[in-house]
């Protein structure tokens, strides 16, 4: 446990979370959300939860991104609200 590394990762995590809900372009939001999942997987692995990190990397950064992109390509790309 290196606290500087953890602190930097948490900072990136918060930045990614805020950016994912404020950005207008939904495709950008999906990509930022994939980056969020990747940082979260690194954090899980750093907290010795390898199984959870595996699931986060496979489902959060892999499958969900593909499904979100499929949904964005079928609906609008701009957020209305």
């Amino acid at each position, binding site marked *: 446990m290196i606290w500087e590394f953890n602190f930097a990762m948490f900072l990136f995590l918060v930045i990614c979370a805020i950016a994912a809900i404020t950005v207008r372009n939904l495709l950008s939001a999906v990509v930022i959300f994939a980056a969020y999942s990747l940082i979260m997987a690194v954090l899980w692995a750093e907290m010795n939860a390898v199984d959870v990190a*595996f*699931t986060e990397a*496979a*489902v959060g950064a892999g*499958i969900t991104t593909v*499904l979100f992109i499929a*949904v964005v390509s*079928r609906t609008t790309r701009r957020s209305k609200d």
Partner: protein
Amino acid sequence: MKEDVVIRTVTRMIVPFIQLFGLYVILHGASSAGGGFQGGVIFASAFILYGIAFGITEARKRIYEKITTVAASLGVYIFAGIGLLAILFGGNFLGYSALPLPLPGPEIRGLMAEFVEIGIGITVMAVMTSIFYDMASKEEVE
């Protein structure tokens, strides 16, 4: 993008390795990191990659939607079947050591845990592929 030879060639080369890695994760789930769910997701991502590179219609020719429906039920049946088999021989649900196999107890437990993981993997793979088909196909299917 459909004519891009690089994407098609790389996809054709990398899909067997993704599937092999998925099987590895499923079968080593009990002893190390991984398990049926993660392995099934990795196995399904191979089909999803194929569908992205070659188009949905081409992917539907490789793994039919009927097969995904049957496989999604088959995995649940494997899981519940092994659990109920243990009840039938007088144990608890999924109490593997009650099964009358000519092996010591820990080996029976390991073997049956692998079968349960395989069932979970089949279901997750089929459901993920089916969700991808439903999300990505343009035409309306009743």
